[in-house]
């Protein structure tokens, strides 16, 4: 294919896609005009029905909790697949990253970096726990809080080092959190099915609106999601960081 034909083909494709895109944008409702009834209905009834003040959480972990279960297992399957690919196979050993090779001198992290990093880690853990626990009251939730807890561990890696990062997030803990979180969500579903005959029906006592213990089942499965996301997220990062090789192969420089 000559460059000339390629440009012609691209021009034709760009024109068609551009026209479709412009037509689609033209058909959008005006900015700020919400047409669907569901959002307005949720806003009107969710506080009374579920005793929570974060509508996004009410939708995610109650009204469409079954969809969220599916999303949780998408994440779980993705993390499991990644671990299957990158974790050491038979005859391979897990090794530290190349910066710990004996012939390689990496300048040690300065005291200021370590001090500020650890301070930031403490603040980040606090924010992460807050965001997970207050999912039904303020913006955020298990997914957001879980990833914030994950970045706290990454801060340990960035400011102190790989060995300390692995020490604060050992593999048994990450595997356990990921699996326990995913399993707990399904168990809550089965529990509600046995108790009420409906999968993921909010059968727990709803409590007082705006208090930490309110919303019935919502904080419970939110906590499960937080656990799973935090564990899975750090697990992904660990698998990317560590070095897996056959004992016969030389350590990479």
């Amino acid at each position, binding site marked *: 294919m000559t460059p000339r034909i390629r440009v012609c083909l691209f021009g034709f494709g760009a024109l068609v896609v551009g026209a479709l895109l412009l037509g689609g944008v033209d058909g959008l409702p005006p900015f700020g005009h919400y047409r669907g009834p569901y959002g307005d209905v949720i806003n009107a009834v969710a506080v009374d029905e579920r005793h929570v003040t974060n509508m996004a959480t009410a939708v995610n972990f109650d009204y469409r909790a079954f969809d969220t279960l599916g999303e949780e297992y998408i994440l779980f399957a993705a993390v499991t697949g990644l671990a299957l690919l990158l974790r050491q196979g038979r005859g391979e050993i897990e090794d530290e990253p190349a910066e710990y090779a004996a012939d390689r001198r990496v300048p040690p992290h300065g005291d200021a970096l370590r001090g500020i990093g650890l301070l930031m880690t403490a603040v980040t853990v606090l924010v992460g726990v807050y965001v997970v626990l207050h999912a039904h009251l303020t*913006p955020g939730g298990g997914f957001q809080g879980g990833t914030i807890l994950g970045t706290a561990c990454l801060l340990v890696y960035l400011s102190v080092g790989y060995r300390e990062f692995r020490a604060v997030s050992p593999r048994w803990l990450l595997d356990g959190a990921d699996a326990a979180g995913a399993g707990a969500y399904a168990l809550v579903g089965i529990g509600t099915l046995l108790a009420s005959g409906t999968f993921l029906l909010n059968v727990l006592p709803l409590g007082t609106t705006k208090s930490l213990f309110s919303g019935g089942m919502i904080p419970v499965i939110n906590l499960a999601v937080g656990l799973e996301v935090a564990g899975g997220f750090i697990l992904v990062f660990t698998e990317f960081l560590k070095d897996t090789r056959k004992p016969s192969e030389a350590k990479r420089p």
Partner: protein
Amino acid sequence: MNALVYGALVLVALGGTAVVLTRDLVNQAIVLSLYGMALALLFLVLQAPDVAFSEITVGSAALPLILLVTIAKVRERVP
């Protein structure tokens, strides 16, 4: 639409263009992180704080970090 939304939209457009135009991989990961921040700001002014939260942690911290680690690993092998 108010000035805040316009400002955030302009930032997102500039950020996306900057990510595409940055050729060096390490720099691109950093610019991608800034672009994530711009997107999070847009979500925030559009009153979607839950999504903004996710975008900040995933788009501007987790994804660039995983990219940086991957780039470092690939460079180890090809000196």
